[in-house]
């Protein structure tokens, strides 16, 4: 690297006068990101440090471009930039806003899509019913030999689950399976929405086909009885997750912002709270299914009450009516 006499003098003077300050500035740049909670004085000190560092960086770029010092100043600035602009931790008020405002807003954004996907689910369920009724042998495509054998001997597979695992473990297994399905529906939506459509159509086909198969052996009432308590919310959540996925796909096909990536990013950030709601609702479904649905002794009215009650609760929450604004604000205070 050539050391010219022209640049040497001002650079050397600048270094001699400023170098003593860099040690303290570097110490603050290293300490600021480590502070979990900064006081007002600390935050102001960090901001002052940042301002001074960027001034020094501008001078260094002018006097010593592509030097080790410029790189070190630049890294110190970038570190402080990240520390100053980091997102705040979610506080009580933040959680309240998430559950009261952001989740209902995300649900409202995909309401129409969710209704269309519910229609697709119903249509594919009808198709599944027709298919298995018309071609009964096709049931081997959607049910395991053990399930088929059980139904042919008058036993629904649903009530045998309790014999295989304790309710808590069963709930956990059901919950994890459902979560994988809805996450899959959401994520596959990025494939221009086709993945979400496929998930919904496939699940509808399974539902209708298995119902038709149970009907052929006079067990359809048992299957409906089994799904009564957890089914309404589970199916609604599936449609919501798929709708969120489809909305992601829509952001790719019809970007509402300057680029497709930006559009996708904003849509994902808007819909992420809905996914959290879906996971929480599925947790409830898992518990209901593991502790209530699998017990043959639980009567239909009880199942109906639980199913409708949980579904109404979901509608109220996602409709933004579960946590009234005035009451919520009072709680936040």
């Amino acid at each position, binding site marked *: 690297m050539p050391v010219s006499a022209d640049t040497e003098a001002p*650079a*050397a003077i600048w270094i001699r006068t400023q170098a003593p300050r860099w040690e303290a500035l*570097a110490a603050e740049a290293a300490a600021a990101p480590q502070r979990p909670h900064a006081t007002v004085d600390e935050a102001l000190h960090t901001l002052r440090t940042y301002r001074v560092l960027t001034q020094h960086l501008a001078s260094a770029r002018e006097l*010593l471009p592509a030097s*080790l010092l410029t*790189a070190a100043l630049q890294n*110190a600035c*970038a570190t402080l930039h*990240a520390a100053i602009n980091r997102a705040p931790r979610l506080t009580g008020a933040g959680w309240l806003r998430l559950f009261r405002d952001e989740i209902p807003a995300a649900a409202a954004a995909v309401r129409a899509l969710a209704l269309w996907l519910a229609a697709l689910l119903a249509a594919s369920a009808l198709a599944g019913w027709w298919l298995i009724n018309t071609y009964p042998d096709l049931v081997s495509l959607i049910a395991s030999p053990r399930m088929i054998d059980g139904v042919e001997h008058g036993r629904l597979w649903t009530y045998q689950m309790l014999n295989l695992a304790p309710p808590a473990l069963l709930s956990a297994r059901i919950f994890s399976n459902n979560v994988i399905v809805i996450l899959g529906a959401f994520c596959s939506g990025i494939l221009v929405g086709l993945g979400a459509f496929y998930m919904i159509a496939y699940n509808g086909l399974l539902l209708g086909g298995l119902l038709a198969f149970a009907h052929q052996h006079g067990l359809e009432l048992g299957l409906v009885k089994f799904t009564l308590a957890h089914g309404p919310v589970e199916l609604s959540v599936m449609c919501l997750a798929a709708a969120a996925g489809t909305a*992601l796909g829509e952001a790719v096909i019809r970007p509402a912002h300057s680029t497709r990536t930006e559009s996708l990013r904003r849509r994902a950030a808007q819909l992420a709270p809905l996914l959290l709601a879906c996971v929480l609702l599925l947790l409830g479904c898992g518990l209901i299914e593991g502790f209530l649905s699998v017990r043959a002794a639980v009567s239909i009215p009880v199942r109906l009450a639980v199913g409708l009650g949980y579904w109404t609760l979901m509608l109220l929450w996602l409709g933004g009516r579960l946590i009234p604004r005035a009451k919520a604000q009072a709680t936040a205070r």
Partner: protein
Amino acid sequence: MAEEEFTVSSLTGVDMTVRIAGPGTRSYAFLTDWLLRLLLALAWLLAGSLLRLLPRIAADASLAHAVMVVAVILALATYFLYQPVLEVLMRGRTPGLRKAGARIATVEGTTPGTGALLIRNLLRLIDALPVFYVVGLTCCLLTKQRVRLGDMVAGTVLVLDEADSVQSLGRLSVQMQRTALPAEALQLIHDLLDRWRSLEEAQRTRLARELLAKLDPGFDPRRAEASSARALQGRLEALLAGKRGY
């Protein structure tokens, strides 16, 4: 064409550049994390198996079964939640990313929030398709900022972590106060010492002798110490520390 860095606008009007980590760094970090979480998950399973051997547990079949179920759940939770949980807790870093010298940042150069970190992990379901992250890696190779689908959706970028170089500002400050060497000379010595191990013996001793001859008035190239690489390295370090030279 892939970019090696991107510019971040600051409030003060002085833009900063952030260096982007490539697919190699990304893969290295992922493999390190994968090995770690696999080992942790196996450790849970091993602990469960060992607990089952305890006489009190071995005597009760249902208790032994419950112990194993808990161990499996913990192992699965460790394996699948390792990355999202650590990325959130360590603010965009994991042990693997640390080892690879990278961190996750937003496209504005800041630390991503919890939502963005969870979304980028969620999208692994698609990036991992069909096997071995083919979708993610292909996307990484084709995009300007070397991002996979999850990063695109979350608005994140994998950047080189320069946190260690923040310390170098402090060190430079001390060195510049102690020595009268010009900044360019300091940089040359730093560059040479940084590359010391990667250079061949003859090459590094030649470069060191040439530098010392110009910068260290007390250095005599004819003396025996001038031929020893270790002695030359020590003399360069002494120059940086301000113990010799001008």
